[in-house]
Each structure stands twice: as structure tokens, then as C-alpha cells.
């Protein structure tokens, strides 16, 4: 059973998608460690270390994603989590922006996969299954 950390980063309190992701990932056979909303980069990293996680799924809905995610990959690498999968999804930037450019920015920040608004949990699940094979 693969272990995934989920949580909502920064000062973000959007809880609905997080609860739904928890339910769906668990149903799909993952061991889900849900650190919930208002989680800092350190919270994700600590949870990943503690549980020897295979993937970290960062949610950011409220628009500050770009500020909140800065340097996250570096911190992961520092903490020895360089090989842990790193996904991000939600409404990760402020406003309606060209998705191609947004995606590029987040890929450059070191995320392995970047998801646009309204991504279905099924997409996350199939990607995880593929990447964690």
C-alpha cells in the first residue's frame, strides 16, 4: 500500500476538496495521511518523513499558491525527500491565467505534476498509480 500525504498549503482553509480527495484516495487503495488545511511546507515534510511517504499532494485553492509553494522542492530535497513525488493542484494562481504558462512555472518550481482547477480525483488516482508503479 502506497502512502500519500495530502493537505492544503498556506493560509488556505478550503476544506471540501481536501475531504473529498481523502475519501476517494482511500477508496482507491492508498494510505492517506491528511494534514488538512492551513498546512505549512514543514508540516508536509514532517508528515512525509514520519510516514515514509511515496507522494505529497499539495492543494492550493485560494490563490496564494505561487507564494506559498516557493522553495518547497528545495526543502524536500534538503530533508532527503528528493525522490518523493510532488503534485500540486487546485486553483493554484490568482485569477484566470494561461494554463500552459502556469503549469510551466510550477514544473520549474520542481513539481512533478501540476493540475488545473476542477481536476477530478480520478485523474489524481490514475496518475499516482502510473507514477508509483
Amino acid at each position: 500500500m502506497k502512502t500519500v500525504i495530502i493537505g492544503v498549503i498556506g493560509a488556505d482553509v478550503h476544506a471540501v476538496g481536501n475531504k473529498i480527495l481523502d475519501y476517494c484516495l482511500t477508496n482507491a487503495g492508498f494510505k492517506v495521511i491528511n494534514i488538512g488545511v492551513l498546512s505549512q511546507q514543514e508540516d508536509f515534510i514532517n508528515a512525509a518523513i514520519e510516514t515514509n511517504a511515496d507522494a505529497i499532494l499539495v492543494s492550493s485553492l485560494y490563490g496564494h499558491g505561487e507564494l506559498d509553494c516557493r522553495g518547497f522542492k528545495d526543502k524536500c530535497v534538503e530533508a532527503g525527500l528528493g525522490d518523493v513525488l510532488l503534485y500540486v493542484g487546485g486553483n493554484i494562481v490568482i485569477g484566470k491565467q494561461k494554463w500552459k504558462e502556469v503549469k510551466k512555472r510550477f514544473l520549474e518550481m520542481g513539481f512533478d505534476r501540476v493540475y488545473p482547477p476542477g481536476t477530478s480525483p480520478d485523474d489524481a488516482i490514475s496518475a499516482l498509480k502510473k507514477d508509483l508503479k
Partner: protein
Amino acid sequence: MELKNKRISEEEFLKMREEVLSSWTTGKDIDIDEAIEYLKKLPDHKNFAKKLYKAKDLDRVLIQPRAGVALVDQHIKLLKYLEKIGRADFLPTTVDSYTRQNRYEEAEIGIRESIRTGKSMLNGFPVVNHGVNSCRRVAESINVPLQARHGTPDARLLTEIIHAAGWTSNEGGGISYNIPYAKNVPLETTIKNWQYCDRLVGYYEERGISLNREPFGPLTGTLVPPCISNTVAIIETLLAAEQGVKNITVGYGQLGNIVQDVAAIRALREQAEYYLNAYGYEDVYVSTVFHQWMGGFPKDETEAFGLISMGATTAALAGATKMITKTTHESIGIPTMQANAKGLKASKEVVMLLRGQKYATGIKIRKEIEQIKTEVDQILDKVLEVGHGDLAVGTVEAFKAGIIDIPFAPSQFNAGKILTARDKSGAVRILEFGNIPFTQEVKDFHYNMLKKRAEKENREVDFNMTIDDVYSISDKKNIIDLENEWWKNENN
């Protein structure tokens, strides 16, 4: 200090003020006596409380958007646009999320980054960092009343700043700006914080300044049944009235079934007034606000227009005093000012078309009103019981015990046991009650309504219904599939 639903004495209040004002550098700019003089000079049409009061004789719903960006001049540009092109009756300032968490240093970074990148890197306007003078500049640049909208568990300094700046309304409350907006903040704390905010309003009221207060009705915006959101709104109304608030707008977020939505708004106003009277607050003016659908929005912008306009129709039929509008960018991100104005325009068109029209109060509406009122009474009775007669204490205890329980809330101080789903005609009913103290009769009512849907769709009444309904407005794939099946079925 012990939590109690009791007006804070002036002495105590002034002592707390000092601490509040020193919590960030901009606090020291506030001179309340000067502020009172400033507010006295505001014309009536820029006073939220007065405009709402006068609106009771207008035959349409007033409209207000959400809007806020990081920098003062951009924010002014945005508001002016929404006033002129969107023809908003009220304007907001939506506050960014760092400020909401009192993380002013991060807000400062957001401001700097916004200047550097030339675009707003904050999801709202950082009121506290900008301070009184900048906030006055905002209010002075427009011709309609201005309100702060946020989601701040500790909004004491923010409240001081906005009122001193001539913003004549403040959204929020000790419950509604905690449970949906925080994870670890105890209710005791936020109720006290908001008693302070309300007490400040009372302080101004005593000095002849009318200000409006608006509990945040929709909570998590996601399948919250009317009995829960109305209960919270009424509690916050009573707590505010105790601190001397005189002009309150109780709110409710559209659920989608027109009869339920109309009934909820009417029950809310009637019951808020009833409880205010019963508690001896006889000079409080109550108005209502209807929020267009607050949950996940359809991605397609044209579909969003349909949803927005249908919400506006409901608000008009309900006879709400004002309505908060959404935009076609809702599912994606903070709207451009053009998209924002379009949400206003479509909504305004609808309320103009429906001037003078309300949903006729027949038996169906009356039954739904009675249903909601009964449920609210049952919850409130229990709240008072566990509070040994004190509403503030009772609220804390009630959340602890799950007597009040808000679906999908992030707070650890919320039980999170309740589950809701839609019945056959889209009204939100409860399928898992947790510890909500309903009689068997009420529980049966909810169960039967859900049962009928389950039979129609040939499924169980269970959590899968809830999940489906989280998406049922934003994404109709499931519903369309069901319908396609129906057409194919030769037997009907």
C-alpha cells in the same frame, strides 16, 4: 476574562483597545474621536445601515459583488469600475488571506511582490497593512457604501481600521468567521474577538453613528442545511445586539431549490426578529442578504451565467434586501474586473425585471418555513440548555457536543458528523444527524425526503449521495448520464 453573552463595559473595552491598536503599526493612526467626526459627515447614501434601512421600501433586491486586490490604486480602480459599469448598489473590500490569519508580514511580502510583478499577488486587499488613511482614500473614491468582507477569526484591529476609515459595514462573526475559516482557533476566542468588534460598533452607535453588521451566512457554502446556517446567523445576531449593534443583515447561501431558498430567507428574517424581541433587543433593524450559490461553480462561463441569473431570480422571489453576486470566473480564480461587472449586470437585469415580484406565500412555502423554524428552535433550545442560559457559553458547548455541526468545515472544533444531500427536487436535507438534537418527527421528515429520491434513482441513502451532490451544481455529468439512461429506457 470569562466568556459570557454580556455587553463589555466601556472601561474594559477601552483597556482592550489599547492592546488591539498596538498589535500592528497601523493601529496607532486611529483616533476614535476624530473618526466619529469623520463618520458624522458621511452622507446618508454612503452609509450602509441607512441605505439598507431605506431599501426596505424599494421594490427590488440591492446588489453587491465581492472584490479586492493588493494595492490601493488598483483597488480603487476596481471598485469604481464595479460601481459605474456593474451598477453595484453596495461595494465590498474583500480582504486577503494572510491578513485574515493576522499574518501581516506575509501580507507585506504580497504587497511588495504585487508591486514588483505588476499584478495582484494577494487574493484580497490587505486592510491592516494599508491602514486608515489609505482605507479612507478607497471609501472616498466611490459613491456607495463600503463594507469589509473577510473571514478573519481575529478581526479586531481590522475592524478598528475600517470603521475609522468610513467603511460602514463589517461582515463576520464569532462562529461564521471561525468554523469555516480556521482549523485551530477555539470558539471562545473568536466569540470574544467578535464581541469586541460588535462592541466597537455599539460604541459608535452610542455616539450617533449607524453602522451595519453582517454575520456570514453561507458558512462553508457546501450543502449547509438552512437550519444550521440560520441558527448560526441568529446566534451571531443576538450576540451582536447584546454589544449594542442596531443594524444587522442576516445572510443565507443559495442551495438551489427555490421553495427552500425562499422559505429559508423568510424564516431567517422572521426568526431573527422574533428572537431579538424575545431577548429584549427591540430597536434592532434586520435585513437579509442572499448569496448566489457559494459551492463549486460550473467551469463553463455560459452555464455560470445561467446559475448566476437563476440565483438572482431566487433572491428576488425571496424578497431578500440585498444579494452577493458571483462571476463566470468563479470556478477558475479571482475574476477580472470585467467578469466581475458582468456578474453584477446579469444579476441587476434580473432584479430589475422582477421589481415588485415575490414568491406567493402558499402552503408549500409556509410548510417549508415552519420546518426550518422548528428545526432552528430545537437546536437553539438545546444550545441554551447546555449553556445554562448563556448563549455564548452554550454556543461553545453546542459545537463541542455536535449540537451545531457544519458540513465540510475545516475547524477541529466542529464535530463534522453531519451529512447532507439533495432530495428529489434539489432541496438540501440531512441524512446523518450526528448530535443535532432533532425530534424523531423532524428526522423522519428528512429521511423520507431523501428516501423518495433514492427510490427514484434506484440507489441507497448514503455518503455517495453527499459526494455526488458536492459536484451536482458544478458538473452535471452524472445527471446527464442518468437522463440519457432514462431516454433509452423503453418502459417509461
